[in-house]
């Protein structure tokens, strides 16, 4: 449970401007940021981009009883088994996928940072108690944990975000705690404590900002994982299911049975997932390298 994790190097975090500079020089990170930017734009302006609402079915008029026509001028990505425009659904799908990514990571961060900071700041008994709890959570493979939570909460968008978020908590908490312990030993924190600054100030002003960078990197990568795990839950029948809010994972999972007759149904949402996840991974890697240039 306590396999050694490379200690985050505190000194090398460098100045924020340096980090940004290195980030901007990192080609991969910029490609990643561009991908995510495009997808965010697509999500925001989805109603303007798509030819029709993603839930519009027209299986009689368009499908002629056969599943499913591929790309055409009118329907770039073809039609799905209910005659819905796949392009529209993929574009709208960006909304849910990004929402899941952001909200679930935010949930994970909220609890993870609180726990990790408490453990790292107070140390001692508080630390032991929190870390034992974290160890127990970490003993569960995270996807299994998420499945368990969805089973408990029932399927649905919020439930999925909560499940994935909570399964991220121990990861963030442990990471932050480790880096807080490192920061705690630095002279400036020691002196801040000796000077008798209020605990809250020491924690929020002196420790957290210096300890948070590995967590930020992990959070970026966790967004990638969140999208993949949502897809996995969808494949297992635990996905979101509102046709007005199509979600890539569910789309992919529902159409895998048409892999033979209509491969485009699986292809487009699949590619959308891969590209988005790739974007987050690229950005996360770039961030890590920018924060800890030794690794590049």
């Amino acid at each position: 449970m306590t396999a050694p994790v490379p200690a985050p190097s505190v000194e090398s975090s460098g100045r924020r401007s340096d980090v940004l500079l290195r980030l901007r020089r990192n080609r991969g990170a910029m490609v990643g940021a561009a991908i995510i930017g495009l997808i965010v734009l697509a999500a925001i302006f989805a109603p303007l981009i798509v030819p029709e609402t993603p839930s519009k079915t027209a299986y009689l008029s368009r499908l002629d009883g056969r599943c499913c026509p591929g790309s055409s001028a009118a329907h770039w990505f073809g039609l799905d088994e209910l005659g819905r425009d796949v392009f529209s659904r993929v574009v709208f799908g960006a909304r849910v996928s990004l929402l899941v990514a952001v909200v679930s990571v935010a949930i994970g961060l909220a609890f993870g940072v609180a726990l990790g900071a408490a453990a790292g700041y107070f140390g001692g008994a508080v630390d032991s108690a929190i870390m034992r709890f974290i160890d127990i959570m970490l003993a569960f493979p995270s996807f299994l944990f998420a499945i368990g939570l969805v089973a408990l909460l029932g399927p649905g968008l919020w439930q999925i975000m909560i499940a994935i978020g909570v399964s991220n908590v121990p990861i963030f908490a442990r990471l932050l705690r480790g880096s807080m312990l490192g920061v705690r030993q630095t002279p400036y924190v020691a002196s801040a404590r000796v000077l008798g600054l209020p605990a809250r100030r020491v924690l929020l002003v002196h420790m957290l900002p210096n300890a948070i960078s590995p967590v930020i990197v992990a959070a970026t990568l966790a967004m990638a994982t969140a999208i993949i795990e949502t897809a996995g839950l969808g494949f297992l029948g635990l996905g979101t299911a509102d046709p007005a809010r199509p979600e890539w994972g569910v789309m992919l999972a529902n159409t895998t049975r048409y892999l033979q007759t209509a491969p485009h149904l699986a292809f487009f949402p699949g590619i959308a997932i891969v590209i988005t996840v790739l974007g987050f991974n690229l950005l996360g890697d770039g961030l890590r390298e920018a924060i800890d240039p030794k690794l590049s």
Partner: protein
Amino acid sequence: MLRFALKRLLLAVPVLIGVSLLVFAWTRALPGGPAQALLGERATPAAVAAVERNYGLDRPILVQYGKYMSRVATGDLGRSITSRRAITTELKDRFPATVELALSAMFFAVAAGIPLGVVAAKHARKAIDHISLVGSLLGISMPVFFLALILKWAFAVKLGWLPSIGRLDVKLKLDRHTNFLVLDAIIGRNGTALVDALKHLVLPAVALGTIPLAIIARITRTAVLEVMTEDFVRTARAKGMSQRIVNRRHVLPNALLPVTTVIGLQTGLLLSGAILTETVFAWGGMGTWIFDAVAKRDYAVLQGGILFIVIVFVIVNLLVDIGYALIDPRIRLR
């Protein structure tokens, strides 16, 4: 060394107790219940009550937990409500299946990932490095089941090179002593079965192993690059040893330290990835079993199965810690 292992083992005990409590509380908190799941669409309140009474589900939850743990202590994990088989019997069948798959996947990931990472590091910032980087990123970004379906469609259905489901051609006779079919085939000196079992392993193992492969390749690359800049590597070269020996004795062992950690962490991911992979390839292992159990609220399976997976996960991490200590004297001789 022994003390180190024992200490780690002791540390795992409270974790396991916590896990068992958590799993038990979770199963009891699930909506619906086994009675409902068992009775299906025609469950009447009376029938549900009868089943619950029969199954002891109406007793206080702490009593149920106490009873459960005292039975676990005697090695009795209960029975599956749906298959009516003992959990321990099911485990004997299914656990080897999943382990065989996970080990093959990990073997694939390590055997391909480490050399790939080393090659990428050797040619850092050249074409081959960029290709392997993009490739591994794609590998990480691909949902496991999507990859599994694509592999199956291409190599089993379209090309017909490899089987699409199961662990062994059902027409082949093989005595199953261990239920590790590869092992059983070797024990039984059954060459045909061995080849067939290996063929069945290829697609699921590749599908499951791709993510760890990508991660291992990347970590190896980073670690090798980092170690190559270490002073002791320069020292080794200054001694007049060939690059090959320097790499083998100095660079690789040090670079493997972070890789070892990653292998341990990835085991957990493999176990969860197996849930998806096993479904696609109709692999009769733990993954499909536990997922079915969630749908059917098979408490005994959920408790026993998840507890078992977690124990395995804890043990694997223990082994990784020990392996780490074996490689790194700084931990071993602290």
